[in-house]
């Protein structure tokens, strides 16, 4: 899974059926210290993540399809957690 920060929502009326009624979030991938890596991903939100929150992104299709309970479906990235804190003890 990847760490990311929620920056925008993507509004889309015409979409694959799996995205109907679902919230799409544009998330900047960040490193463990919270710095943007320059990459981003559009992911389906299943945990009600909000503005600026650091989240966990699952970027794997089979797991994503299990979460949305639809298969086949062209989905890969899902916001699966909201990160409270990342600890990196010194010396590790």
């Amino acid at each position: 899974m990847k760490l990311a920060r929620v920056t925008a929502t993507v509004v889309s009326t015409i979409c694959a059926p799996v995205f109907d009624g679902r919230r799409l979030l544009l998330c900047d991938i960040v490193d463990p210290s919270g710095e943007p890596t320059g990459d981003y991903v559009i992911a389906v939100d299943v945990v009600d993540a909000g503005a600026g929150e650091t989240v966990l992104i699952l970027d794997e299709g089979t797991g994503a399809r299990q979460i949305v309970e639809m298969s086949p479906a062209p989905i890969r990235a899902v916001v699966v957690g909201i990160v409270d804190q990342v600890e990196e003890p010194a010396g590790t």
Partner: protein
Amino acid sequence: MQLARVTGTVVATVKYPGLEGIKLLIVQPLDRHGEPKGRQVVAADGVAMAGPGELVYIVGAREAAQALPETFVPVDHAIVGIVDAVEPVAGT
């Protein structure tokens, strides 16, 4: 999934079985600010409604084929939605 801009269409008469009737579009992947990022690729139109000039989001890899009616086909990028708006989340 990533943002992309449709820049053209591809006409291919001879295609692998299962790809008949699938619209192929040239898309330019974009970064999160809407600037071109990387090379243009050919994507199958999974919503069957995208056209040149439109802002779309694409899915890559194995998931791409699952956007199509026949899911066991050789496709590595697919358009899975048309973007109406990318709305910054308040507070970011």
